[in-house]
């Protein structure tokens, strides 16, 4: 390659090309794409802050008409909404913490190249990525071990994921030099100490990434609540929202489950306020963790 560089070798690498029509076209496309991500939510916010009359007369676009907080106060006055928001926050935090602990405990030993049996154990765990038993066998297991219709069915099974473990393991193996471990062990440190004092403090990015993924997945999920629970107190916020939109859909036959939805159903402003309650927590944590997760995705691409 250096040969073809010819006499220009040593000059600045790539000459800046002129800002061309192609650049302009790309920027316009990307701006439009970004607008499709932002405008729907501006619209939802505007509707949630508008009077019902304005919403019904289709006057609300991207700015509230007849500004008021009624929809939000109505949500906050609904004890069901408030208690289930709190419940969702609790299971989200619990699952995230548990997940980080279990994943790290698994990833660290498996990241030690010298550990006998490491390959076999990794394989045992990876099988679960490609072979899932499916809904009914899982349902029967939960029934047998007695976690059906309890909060544990929503917290425990999602706490460990082979994929997340592999990402953390790759991080432990590639981003922290093994020489740190060697010198600590020579100084008499135990494996626990090396893990807790050296590896954990150096692994903030991967912890932030996985925390974001697990927390978002738990906050956003509702299928497991639909599968494994029937109690109203165990319904995550997304499930309530699902019941609400269900009741607002055309000619939907209302099944027993959507009675709550029917009860809440829904001046559109109210629906929009609930959408905001379900979205805002994600919008709040997202910017703080965003700088980390790109790295996490890249680690996922490295084959273990």
């Amino acid at each position: 390659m250096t040969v073809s560089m010819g006499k220009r070798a040593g000059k600045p690498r790539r000459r800046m090309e002129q800002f061309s029509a192609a650049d302009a076209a790309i920027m316009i496309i990307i701006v439009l794409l970004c607008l499709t991500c932002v405008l729907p939510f501006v619209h939802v916010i505007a509707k949630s802050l508008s009077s019902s009359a304005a919403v019904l007369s289709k006057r609300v676009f991207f700015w509230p008409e007849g500004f008021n907080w009624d929809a939000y106060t109505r949500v906050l006055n609904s004890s069901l909404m408030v208690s289930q928001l709190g419940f969702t926050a609790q299971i989200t935090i619990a699952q995230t913490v548990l997940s980080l602990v279990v994943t790290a405990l698994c990833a660290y030993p498996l990241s030690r190249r010298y550990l006998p049996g490491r390959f076999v154990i990794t394989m045992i765990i990876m099988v679960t990525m490609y072979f899932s038993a499916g809904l009914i066998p899982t349902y029967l297991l939960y029934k047998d071990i007695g976690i059906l219709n309890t909060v544990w069915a929503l917290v425990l099974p999602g706490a460990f994921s082979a994929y997340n473990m592999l990402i953390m393991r790759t991080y432990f193996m590639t981003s922290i030099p093994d020489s740190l471990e060697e010198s600590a062990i020579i100084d008499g440190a135990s494996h626990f100490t090396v893990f807790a004092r050296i590896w954990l403090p150096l692994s903030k990015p991967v912890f932030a990434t996985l925390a974001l993924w697990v927390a978002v997945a738990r906050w956003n999920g509702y299928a497991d609540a639909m599968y494994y629970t029937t109690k109203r107190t165990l319904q995550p916020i997304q499930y309530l929202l699902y019941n609400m939109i269900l009741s607002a859909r055309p000619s939907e036959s209302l099944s027993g489950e959507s009675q709550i939805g029917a009860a809440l159903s829904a001046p559109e402003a109210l629906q929009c306020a609930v959408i905001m309650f379900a979205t805002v927590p994600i919008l709040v944590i997202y910017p703080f963790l965003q700088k980390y997760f790109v790295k996490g995705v890249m680690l996922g691409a490295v084959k273990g």
Partner: protein
Amino acid sequence: MIAQRSLGRPLKRSFGTGSVPGRAIAAAAKYWQLYAMLVLPLAFVILFNYCVYPNLRIAFMNYRPAKGWASDWVGMGTFAKVFKDKDFFRAFRNTLVFNIADIILQFPAPIILALMINELRAKAFKRVSQTILYLPHFLSSVIVASVAYTLFRPETGLVNVALTNAGFIAKGIPFLTEKWHWVITYLTINIWQQIGWGSIIYLAAMMGIDPTLYEAATVDGAGRFKRLRHVTLPGIRPTIVMLLIMRMGQLLGSGFERLNAFGNVNVREFQYQLSIYVYEKGLGPAGDFSRSAAVGLFQTLVGLVMVLLSDRAAKLLGEDGLV
């Protein structure tokens, strides 16, 4: 961190024995802390994955709740019943067609976006737009569906109101309430939701391309498009192949939460896919556990076979493949 469970401590004396069990004991003694860390995670894997596998036997039984695990064995009988089932056929057809459409339309979208982002030179613009484009990935299917209904309702949806006010249409378009429109809207929203997130991995692969290749291409007179065609694309090719193989494993996958959130009576013809089938037949009023489990097993097996086949095909074509 964890209860100090000693796996090998009393055996420490036998350290250094040459035989296989001897070496295992020696390793256990030397690394017991590392093995102890694995106890809790392995307990999770065994309980929530490996303990589920034996329950797959239900697919080969005619499960009756009254009899429980003492129900009659029927061998492949359940599968024979399933493959004759009209509902199954419809769900299977929809799942397959949606996945093929998704692979053709959605799979290339992040690659194209990554190529465009890669061409951006204004740093701040690049950063801000990426942040915005990744966001939809983090929204739940219920939120996306509710926002979609807010935007696309025939009478009151923003898009239809705007189009009507502008005089383009006289009557609202039933984006989500007529089955053919629904297919297009559903697939498009999926592209929209995943395009930004999907591009990250390709952008990462592009960063890994040796810059001297670009220099050489420039010196040889390659313009931007030629560099894209002859340097960037070949550079991300292994990533594309790997992701395509993994995508093939999802050929019969159908996300329950999304489909369920987007469903309504008018579009059930197409929205009825395998995940809905498994849920309704299994946990619905019918409660046919065996049939539902058989379909779930079928989905998993097809996925496995597809991964192995496409990995094989990739290798025959001279690509790296998965492993």
